[in-house]
């Protein structure tokens, strides 16, 4: 009985560790970026701005993982896109347009399980904000404030 319980616990932890959902890790760094569109060409559209100040630190787990992204932005007026660049592991998905009410969309896929190699990696978040003249300006429309959520999970 004693031996059964001891090994059962051991197996439990091993299983837990192998599933990965308990100790997968994702951390955002770089704070909360603000993207300001200030210029535009007559006959064209305002010039989009890019922000690459934020990163995601993430770790391998015992299983193959991916990172998804979604946003919440009530009364969205303008356009915000994100793409992961310089990912240590995994394959960045094409640029994702962040819109209110969207479903979680892949940002990085195929993050390999460990081992071998280093466990910790990162990527840069490249945000691109754009607006058309027809979409107005913040003085009249207010700013767009996105709460962008990234999730790492088993693929």
């Amino acid at each position, binding site marked *: 009985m004693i031996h059964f319980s001891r090994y059962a616990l051991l197996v439990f932890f091993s299983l837990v560790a192998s599933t990965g959902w308990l100790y997968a890790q994702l951390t955002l760094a770089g704070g909360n970026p603000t993207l*300001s569109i*200030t*210029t*535009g060409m*007559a006959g064209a559209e305002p010039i989009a701005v890019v922000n690459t100040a934020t990163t995601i630190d993430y770790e391998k787990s015992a299983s193959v993982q991916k990172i998804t992204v979604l946003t919440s932005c009530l009364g969205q007026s303008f356009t915000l896109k994100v793409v992961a660049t310089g990912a240590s592991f995994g394959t960045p998905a094409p640029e994702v347009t962040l819109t209110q009410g969207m479903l979680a969309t892949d940002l990085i896929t195929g993050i390999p399980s460990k081992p071998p190699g280093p466990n910790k990696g990162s990527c840069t978040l490249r945000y691109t904000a754009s607006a058309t003249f027809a979409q107005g300006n913040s003085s009249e429309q207010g700013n767009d404030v996105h709460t962008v959520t990234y999730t790492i999970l088993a693929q």
Partner: protein
Amino acid sequence: MKKSLAVLAIAILSLSFIQESNAQASANQTVNLTVSAVYKISTSGNPGALTISNGTAGVDALTSVSDNSTTYSITQNVGNTVKVTAYLNSALSSGYTLTLGLASTQGTSAGSVDISNATSGSAVDVVTAISRGADAGQTISYNFSADASAGTLSATSKTVTLTLTN
């Protein structure tokens, strides 16, 4: 704290500058409108044939014929010294006489002027002192006369050139 405020102030200032520079609400364009010297003269068409078909026994001068069926129009913006001259492509033979009269409201008509011997080198004035502006639909009067002693004249075309000149 002071340093933070300074950074914030610079940031706000920069943003204001950018917005101001892009808030260009006007564009300029230079348009040059030039009016050059303009001379225009035209006629309404050709007069009918001037055919002398009558005369008087004992009188050398045949019965003259005339035509007032055409008009001329002019436009000029040059000045009050502009005039209209007239000449034929070749002079008429002796005994035939073609006179020309141009009515005018903008200038001074010379009345009925003999152009029988007026050629390009000896054009005659028919209207002078035309003031700037337009004069439309003014009557052109031709009168053709001949002497019996000059003989007959088979149908002959003559080109009358009216020149608006300064």
